[in-house]
């Protein structure tokens, strides 16, 4: 016998077994707690800022009662979209990381480490600087196109005859990212100073300027991409066993692999198009989810999304509240948290003989 207590599960079966699920109790509890934490964080985020709002005032405002014009304006027009955008972006980056880690079977994968965010950034900055008349509506599409190109490039580059090694794949991504970033920087030098400045703010991964329009963009794309990810969750679980084993189990790997890459790139690209590159969220969230609760792929994805939302929400809140008038972009804070975790993960990386 083992000393480890077996994880407890609730088995849910409909009479004719159309629905038959084995639900991990711990994961369900953790999900509940994370939802509560996210709600609490959102409340604090809505109340905090240069214009303080008390909890009572906040509740009244959210119920549609106008206390003052200023409070209405601050809460509804600035903080609410910003809070929602932070949560959505966090969830999207986290899920993108989870999908990339599954596809590449590489625990170090993250959209910003493998060049996906940089590809989106280059495409957006190029258009911001070269064709300033084009509105921000096109940004998600541009970001998506740029990211897909980079993702394909890196897949092609890291595919060698001996198969791909986890660390080499990441290094390849870093090299490509450095190259793309240098082009982005050159473009910003070329552009007029004010355009370059707006691009610069965006590039630091800041959620400052999120509007309801941005929230709609994020929510609309999520409504398409998240169900797609859920449908693929079973195949993702099989693919964690390796490509050959997954095919042996009957998972449609040839179909799911490109679809999964597309969804992962899409999630990262849309999030990037709105707030700029946010590093390390996609790296941390899936690992944190695994530590918090052991669960099948479906619940794992839910946990990952919630953790990502909390992470970026907290980073945004700290970034704007910690130093009062100066706003620290959330992307810088996620990098500060993310790098030490990356190093720990690197130290534990399995060196796989392929």
């Amino acid at each position, binding site marked *: 016998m083992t000393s480890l207590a077996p994880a407890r599960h609730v088995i849910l079966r409909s009479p004719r077994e159309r629905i038959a699920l084995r639900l991990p109790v711990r994961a369900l509890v953790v999900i509940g707690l994370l939802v509560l934490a996210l709600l609490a964080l959102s409340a604090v985020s809505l109340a905090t800022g240069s214009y303080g709002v008390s909890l009572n005032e906040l509740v009244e405002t959210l119920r549609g009662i106008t206390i003052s014009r200023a409070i209405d304006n601050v809460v509804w027009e600035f903080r609410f979209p910003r809070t929602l955008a932070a949560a959505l972006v966090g969830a999207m980056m986290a899920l993108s990381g989870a999908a990339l880690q599954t596809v590449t079977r590489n625990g170090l994968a993250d959209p910003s480490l493998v060049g996906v965010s940089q590809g989106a950034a280059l495409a957006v900055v190029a258009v911001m600087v070269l064709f300033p008349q084009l509105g921000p509506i096109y940004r998600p599409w541009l970001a998506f196109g740029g990211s897909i190109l980079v993702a394909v490039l890196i897949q092609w580059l890291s595919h060698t005859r001996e198969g791909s090694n986890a*660390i*080499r794949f990441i290094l390849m991504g870093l090299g490509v990212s*450095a190259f793309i970033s240098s082009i982005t920087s050159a473009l910003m030098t*070329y552009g007029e100073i004010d355009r370059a400045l707006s691009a610069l703010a965006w590039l630091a991964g800041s959620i400052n300027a999120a509007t309801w329009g941005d929230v709609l963009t994020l929510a609309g794309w999520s409504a398409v991409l998240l169900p797609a990810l859920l449908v693929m969750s079973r195949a993702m679980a099989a693919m964690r066993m390796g490509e050959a084993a997954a095919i042996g189990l009957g998972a449609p790997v040839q179909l799911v692999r490109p679809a999964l890459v597309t969804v992962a790139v899409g999630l990262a690209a849309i999030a990037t198009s709105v707030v700029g590159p946010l590093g390390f969220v996609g790296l941390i969230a899936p690992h944190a989810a695994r530590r918090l609760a052991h669960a099948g792929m479906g619940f794992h994805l839910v946990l990952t999304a919630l953790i990502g939302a909390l992470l970026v929400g907290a980073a945004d809140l700290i970034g704007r509240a910690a130093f009062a008038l100066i706003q*620290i972009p959330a992307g810088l804070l996620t*990098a500060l948290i993310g790098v030490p975790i990356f190093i720990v993960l690197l130290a534990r990386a399995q060196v796989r003989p392929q």
Partner: protein
Amino acid sequence: MNDIAASPAPSAPPLRAWSGVPLLIAVLGALFLLHIAVGAKSLPIGTVVDALTAFDPAEFDHVIVMNLRLPRAVIAVVVGACLSVAGALMQGVTRNPLADPGLLGLTAGASFAVVMATALFGLTSMALIPWIAAAGALAAALVVYFIARWVPGGATPLSLTLAGAAISAFLAACISIAHLLSEDTFMNLRVWLTGSLAGRDITVLVYTGPWLAIAMLLSLALARQVTVLAMGDEVAQGLGVRTTSLKLQILVAVVVLTAGSVALAGPLGFIGLVIPHVVRLYVGADYRWIVPYSALAGAAYLLAVDIVARIAIPPQEISTGIITAMVGAPLFVHLVRRRSR
């Protein structure tokens, strides 16, 4: 009984190696003059030569050359040479083709130390900057090394590079935050941090120059032993090299060269990666040749890059670091891809 094992690494044919030196010096000289000649106001090469040989303070063009253009060209030469030699030594001693002061976090460490000293202690003394940069570079080098040691499989080229990238990302985020928090202090550091040769203060060279010269001489003196070390620690020990003491001396040389370069020009990436690889194509595996060639070629390379940076998209000027990254990153990808491990 077996004298084959005792012979040092195969060296390039001396004639061929020597033949490149005058050529390289000629190219370096030409680029140096060209670098001074081009700019917002183009000057004829003849005027440049006049200004350098027979300076006339009354002549406006001569003043431009001596006060604005010459310092920048000198700094490009010094920084290009130092970073390339640092990269070559690191590649030799760690047997890591991906080694580069920028990639392994030394540059970020030096920048971070200077930024923090400026932000927290209001550092203004030029004399101290090289020392602070050196401390930062050394600390970063050690942290990166110990992280890589911690990775299963040990300090391989790949794990070292990845650890270097992680530390660089971390320090870059710290620098950005410090930047945001005290904007005033950073007015003069801002351009410096992008790795640009524009508007450099030549007085820094007065303080860093002597140290860089000593480190450069030390590098040339150690080059012969690096060739042996590059064949492996056991081989080197078998040939009578005291590897620990040698590695320590090389570390000192690399840190001083990197810190001096960062103090002069800010973080410039990929030069130390690119140049030794190019040089090796010509002179082979002998560090007695690689080190001096890297110095000359690195100086010429940075001059060329800086010329491009200034004339590519007038009237703007691209940061030199952007162009070195644009050239260096593809080579980096190629080297990672080629590694079979």
